[in-house]
């Protein structure tokens, strides 16, 4: 595990923002952290970065305990804040050079690493000052600076929340790509973003982790329904199967059939064979993560 969070709590005055949080983040995964605004996501991230002191519990990153202030564990971390701001009088290369000096990257390696990262985030051909950058460009520069020291953990706080669809797609694609090099821990309130690239998902609600699991497990909670498309129009297939005992309905040019157990599933297949209806596609209807989150939020 690259990050181990053991029973941490954080209070601001009387308000308990984080309550007994336990979380393990496996290496080389994209770990999505979903939750509504104000649920405590940013506070948890700041605790992991040692920017806020804990009231209880402990955090380790790559085995190094996190302490408040100048924590050694930050040598393993790259951080992208929700609305990153950089020195406007620098261009991307100058800014990354400053970051390289601060992270003690050897001079010989600097230029190559900077060029590599600017290529990765699509800013290689940009020479203008940061003051002229769009929000999306700033986010991409933010990812580049966060990856500069080859961190074991990349923390991104709401990296897509303020971007247009094209910008969001770019950032998600970069985050997915860097998984080979590092572990990505990113928070978002856009559930579809988490669904798109995460291997693991946890949900924080009112300071408590409501669920955490692999996305595949969360999504494949089969509701007993299957979605079919056929080589013939769905309306025609529906008409031909109308007399059968199966519960079915047409939904977005697909046939949704309730097949709660193996025997009904086999019976339905036999019926299709009898009717000579060829299947084009078939998959179980899954519970979308968004539905799960909405259930939690009430």
């Amino acid at each position, binding site marked *: 595990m690259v990050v181990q969070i053991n029973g941490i709590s954080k209070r601001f005055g009387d308000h308990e923002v984080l309550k007994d949080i336990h979380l393990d983040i496996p290496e080389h995964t994209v770990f999505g952290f979903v939750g509504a605004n104000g649920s405590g996501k940013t506070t948890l991230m700041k605790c992991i970065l040692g920017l806020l002191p804990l009231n209880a519990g402990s955090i380790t990153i790559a085995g190094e305990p996190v302490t408040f202030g100048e924590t050694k564990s930050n040598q393993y971390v790259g951080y992208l804040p929700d609305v990153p701001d950089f020195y406007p*009088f620098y261009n991307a290369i100058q800014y990354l050079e400053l*970051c390289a*000096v*601060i*992270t*003690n990257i050897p001079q010989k390696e600097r230029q190559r690493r900077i060029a590599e990262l600017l290529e990765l985030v699509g800013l290689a051909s940009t020479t203008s000052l940061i003051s002229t950058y769009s929000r999306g460009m700033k986010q991409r520069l933010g990812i580049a600076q966060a990856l500069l020291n080859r961190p074991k953990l990349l923390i991104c706080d709401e990296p897509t929340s303020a971007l247009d669809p094209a910008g969001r797609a770019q950032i998600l694609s970069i985050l997915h790509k860097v998984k080979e090099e590092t572990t990505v821990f990113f928070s978002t309130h856009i559930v579809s973003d988490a669904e798109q690239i995460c291997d693991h998902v946890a949900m924080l609600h009112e300071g408590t982790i409501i669920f955490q699991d692999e996305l595949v497990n969360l999504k494949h909670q089969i509701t007993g329904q299957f979605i079919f498309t056929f080589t013939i129009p769905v309306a025609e297939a529906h008409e031909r199967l109308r007399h059968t005992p199966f519960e079915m309905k047409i939904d977005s040019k697909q046939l949704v059939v309730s097949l709660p157990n193996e025997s009904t599933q086999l019976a339905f297949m036999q019926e299709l064979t009898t009717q000579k209806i060829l299947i084009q596609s078939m998959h179980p209807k899954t519970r979308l993560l968004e539905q799960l989150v909405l259930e939690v939020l009430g």
Partner: protein
Amino acid sequence: MNQWLGFLKKEWFESVKTYKLLLVLVIFSILGILNPFTAKISPVLFEQFMPEGALVNLPEPTALDSWLQFYKNVPQMGLIVFILLFSTLMSKELEKGTLVILLTKGLRRSTVITTKFFMALCYWTLAITLSFTITYAYTAYYWDQSQLQHLLFAASCLYVFGILLLAVTLWGNTLFATPYGGTLVTLLVVITLFIAAIFPTSANWNPLELLTATTQLLTGELTPLDLWGPYTITLFAAILVVLLTMSHFKRKLL
């Protein structure tokens, strides 16, 4: 050390790009020229504004008048503008969040404070040196300065007082993390020093004494030894305030 120099380079680059260097050069050059110039034209101006026929026996201006202008203009105008120029060193970065990224990369919090203070100190040194040199050269052109005592020490009194105010401004700016925090704290400290100056015994320690005793220093009524109390206390206080700022910033929640 690399980190310290790297961040100092950023501070320098920023000060140039945000026209601080240009402003300091222009303002303190003007002040340097203004001091002897004001002393020179003051009698002419007085004569112009007196009622016609009035007889006023104005003494000829001397080098002392020029330097008195220096010790009036630089603390009153120069230092105030200087403090305003450097009053948002920390708050700007804390508000925008530019520092947080670098701090999570391992930038030491003490490095932030010491580099910012050092850069402001360099600018203050440049400002005083520039203004002093121009005033000196211009005054020497018009008058004989050989009668003046402790000229350099008197300038160093102003310099040391400025260092204290810079330290206080940085502390206030770190403490409140708002653009006006630093200026407000500095203003309160100066008001407190003025109130303390009401009591004659405060002359033994009050940093404000470094500004008010310059005339007596130049005329030889006071010697540097007479000001060792306020001088050392001011320097000591400046160092203490910088240490306090570092300690405060180490515990600051970001």
